[in-house]
């Protein structure tokens, strides 16, 4: 497919426009087409990239100029929707938040490897079936539960009480944490870090009255006690949530039966 001949960006042999200042990189992508392939394989694309590009730009360029069948999820492109978590150079990241300049090799040609999240069923190329992840999320009751009559005024909360679960409100459900967890890889019935993070968000909310219910759920065999404090989740979270700390706070709440 030929790129439209414009005056400014020169066209690279790959067909991807090469703006000024771009460097050549190899993007190695794990491809899988369920209608043709019996298992995934790697394919490499030599394309130009600006150091200020995000990995998502490279994927979009490959899709637009080289192979339109490349499949991946993305929506906001600004680290907010949580659609494009994937393994970039072996670690779980949002493709829209990783800059090419942070991946450039010190010398020689840069190779960027991109693979889908591990531990969830692969559907095509870079996207996986998120349903098991959302099932775990739903099962910790991620909504406000309050008993008794509804108050006539808003539910007031002090800044100090809000602060207790502030960190875990930032979750965008990208699944980067859960699919970086070795316990989850081995045992997919483990609730996983993201479900615990979202339980934490309500357990420590002074307006919520179902902490006990959620703690009981997480006290079970597939709950928080499966966590081995590997810290992969904290390292993976694109929102900078201290995931392992949140899990530890839930463990402590269970241990002392005090929220």
């Amino acid at each position, binding site marked *: 497919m030929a790129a439209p001949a414009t005056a400014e960006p020169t066209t690279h042999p790959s067909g991807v426009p090469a703006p000024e200042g771009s460097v050549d990189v190899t993007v190695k992508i794990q491809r899988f087409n*369920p*209608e043709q392939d019996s298992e995934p394989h790697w394919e490499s694309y030599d394309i130009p990239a600006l150091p200020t590009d995000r990995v998502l730009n490279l994927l979009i360029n490959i899709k637009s100029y080289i192979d339109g069948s490349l499949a991946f999820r993305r929506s906001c492109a600004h680290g907010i929707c949580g659609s494009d978590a994937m393994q970039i150079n072996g670690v779980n990241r949002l493709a829209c938040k990783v800059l090419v300049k942070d991946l450039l090799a010190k010398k020689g040609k840069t190779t960027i490897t991109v693979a889908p999240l591990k*531990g*969830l*069923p*692969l*559907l*095509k190329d870079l*996207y996986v*079936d*998120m*349903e*098991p992840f959302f*099932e*775990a999320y739903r*099962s910790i009751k991620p909504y406000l539960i309050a008993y008794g009559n509804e108050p006539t005024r808003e539910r007031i909360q002090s800044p100090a009480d809000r602060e207790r679960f502030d960190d875990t409100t930032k979750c965008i459900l990208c699944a980067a944490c859960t699919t970086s967890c070795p*316990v989850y890889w*081995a*045992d*997919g*019935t483990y609730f996983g870090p993201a479900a615990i993070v979202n339980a934490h968000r309500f357990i420590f909310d002074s307006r919520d009255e179902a902490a006990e219910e959620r703690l*009981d*759920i997480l*006290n*079970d*065999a*597939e*709950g928080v*006690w*499966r966590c081995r404090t590997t810290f992969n989740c904290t390292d993976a979270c694109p929102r900078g949530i201290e995931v392992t700390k949140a899990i530890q706070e839930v*463990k402590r709440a*269970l*241990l002392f039966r005090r929220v």
Partner: protein
Amino acid sequence: MAESTTAIALDRPRSPRRPAARRSNFELYSWLFMRISGLALVVLVLGHLFIMNILDGGVHRINFAFVAGRWSSPFWQFWDLLMLWLAQLHGGNGLRTIIDDYARKGSTRFWLKMLLYVSMAVILVLGTLVIFTFDPNI
């Protein structure tokens, strides 16, 4: 979600079947036990290794008489008994966790755990028996 309908039959290691919460504190206590027994084992095991392998002459001075001498004292009997039970339960519980991690099939899980529990019981009974019935005069 639409995309989950069209894909060919893929291996679904994650198909979730979540049984209702059992309302048991077993996992909580076993987690707690791992930390407390771990702390005790630091003293017990390192002390044991130090006495047996480093202290005057180390391993070369160990013989029947040395063991007999130690076990004539209730203190070392208790030390070894505690170390035996804690290490066995700690190591056994650790292996139980690992079996839960890696065994995919219910039957594999069951039989590996049976093997584990039987071997734990044999070693615990045998070890305890030896510590209590040891006769220095045979």
